[in-house]
């Protein structure tokens, strides 16, 4: 059961990007949440991707 939910950092990075672009399927959302509770590095990447979206919207040039 837990194997089903376990994802690597590589997979988590992909889902973190995809999450900025669409609502993730429920299973992926659960996998990602489980991974993020255990992985500080990926949580950092999560904040950075969100930050990137905010920064781009303010790029008025």
């Amino acid at each position, binding site marked *: 059961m837990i194997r089903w939910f376990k994802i690597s950092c590589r997979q988590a990075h992909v889902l973190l*990007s995809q999450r900025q672009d669409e609502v993730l399927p429920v299973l992926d959302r659960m996998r990602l949440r489980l991974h993020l509770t255990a992985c500080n590095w990926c949580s950092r990447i999560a904040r950075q991707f969100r930050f990137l979206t905010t920064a781009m919207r303010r790029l008025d040039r």
Partner: protein
Amino acid sequence: MSGAEALRQAVGEMAPVLLRIARLQLRNDAWAEDAVSETLLSALEGVDRFGGQSQLKTWVVGILKHKIIDQFRRAGREVSIEAATEAAQVESFEELFKADGHRQHEPMEWGDPEATLSRVQFFEILQMCVDELPPALGRLFMMREWLEFDTAQICKELGITSTNCFVMLHRARMRLRECLELRWFATEAAR
């Protein structure tokens, strides 16, 4: 000079800035000039309706975004061929991960987002990093994050599969975060 007249003059003076934005985004001078001419025409026609609640520049750039989107629609086919080619290039950031899929190195902590966003130089670095993306990747990313298209719409406009869209956007984000870390967050300027 009346208020409306002053506004018209201010709109006219924005032309070089608008052209720079359009060129960066469209990477084609003829399309960029079309988009800017149309923007100036709409802005000049609409000046009387411009209530001044929003900043003039924000309002005009908003019009330009729509004109750029129109240009994308017209140019869709050419852009999509280029996008498909770039999507096919394999780049999986192997060096970032160990064989088991876990990260090799700790990503930097970027600190307080608002503090960063208050720095003008940060946006210059961000702009530079976006400009350094391969052209089709840069355009796709700008369509998503700057023009705020939704992903399904982008895929449809460019005629690329949604999987390719996600792969390319992921690739763009990974490159940008590397670039920002190197050029901004790891430097003195960030402090």
